[in-house]
């Protein structure tokens, strides 16, 4: 029974690994601490797995948990490495041929976009990630716990900021 649950859990993580990967990279600029944040998110997802509410999409559930954990992690006063259980092992997520990834996809615009996201506060960062992931206003409102109108207003403000940021390119 538990083995079956674990298999289902692993499959869910595999299906939505991009969500965790992007959140970890956005909220944890320090590469050394990313494994800790990955681990914290996975543990929290596992602890909440039995209580998953089918009313929401898996992605909504995962975004809420991963963002909540990431914000808590980001806000910790001293971001000292947590002694994790797989310290000497590889990260949970890895990029095949990382060198190539660094050379091609992290191009100028993407780096600029990441810099822009990194400069936003914790809550606007979450909003931006959801917006760029093409989530509907309704889903963003569900994940964040604000109204759809508020989502729309905030997104238009961020879009303006984004335009300014990229104006001189």
């Amino acid at each position, binding site marked *: 029974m538990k083995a079956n649950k*674990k298999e289902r859990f*692993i499959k869910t*993580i*595999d299906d939505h*690994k*991009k969500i965790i*990967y992007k959140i970890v990279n956005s909220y944890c600029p320090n590469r050394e601490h990313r494994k800790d944040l990955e*681990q914290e998110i*996975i*543990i929290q997802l*596992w*602890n*909440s797995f039995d*209580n*998953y*509410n089918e009313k929401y999409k898996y992605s909504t559930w995962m975004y*809420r*948990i991963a*963002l*909540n*954990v990431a914000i808590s992690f980001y*806000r910790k*006063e001293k971001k000292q490495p947590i002694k*994790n*259980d*797989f310290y000497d*092992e*590889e*990260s*949970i*997520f*890895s*990029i*095949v*041929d990382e060198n190539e*990834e660094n050379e*091609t*996809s992290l*191009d100028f*615009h*993407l780096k600029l*976009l990441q810099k822009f996201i990194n400069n936003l*506060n*914790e*809550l606007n960062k*979450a909003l931006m990630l959801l917006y*760029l*992931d*093409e989530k509907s206003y309704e889903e963003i409102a*569900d*994940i*964040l*716990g*604000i109204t759809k109108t508020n989502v729309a207003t905030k997104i238009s403000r961020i*879009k303006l900021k*984004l*335009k300014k940021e*990229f*104006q001189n*390119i």
Partner: protein
Amino acid sequence: MMEASELKKILAAYDTKLDKKLTLNVASLKNINLDKSNKNTKTILIYRIIEIVVFSLLALFMGNYIAINWSQTHLVISGIIVGVFTLIALAGSIGQVVLLQQIDFAKPIIDIRKKIELVNTHGLLFVKLMFLSAPIWWSYIVVGSDYLFNIDLYTHMDVDFVLKYLMVNSLLIIPLVWFLNKLTYKNLHIKWVRKTIGLLTGTKTMKALEFLNDIEKFKS
């Protein structure tokens, strides 16, 4: 100039790349102790439960003290004042346990962040209670000296002094309540409020209050 839609395209291309290249390291995932619970939340919960036990015992003690000394008005009044403050502190600690029980990371971010930060600002309640106690600090002394040393201080006091003391301290209550009402995250933009809170509580509470302020701004 680059439009937001173009940025979305860049991100979509990055997404496609991640689809191809991002892999889940199942062996590492299986190595994590998944049943590890949230130690930090549990520790805070234990502290708050200890607070509840201590304040409950103190409230019971004060109830008993008032009952025993029912015939001596000054001891009853002192006992009631200390008892009321104990009950406020008890209510604060119970509220914290309720908040901690409601923290579920699968709930919307704003709700959960607010609850977490309210837990982190708990220290401010004790600072406020301490200040609010200032005009009636004599209650603690009267009850303490009577219970611990069996000395009734009131009988040794001059009536004129007691009356003047009561008048001056009653006048203090109004500015004190005004002052304490100002000490909230909503007034962090006021320099003296910010400085006072920073001085009396510490970095953790201050950061939590600042974030509560950010949350309110984000919601509006």
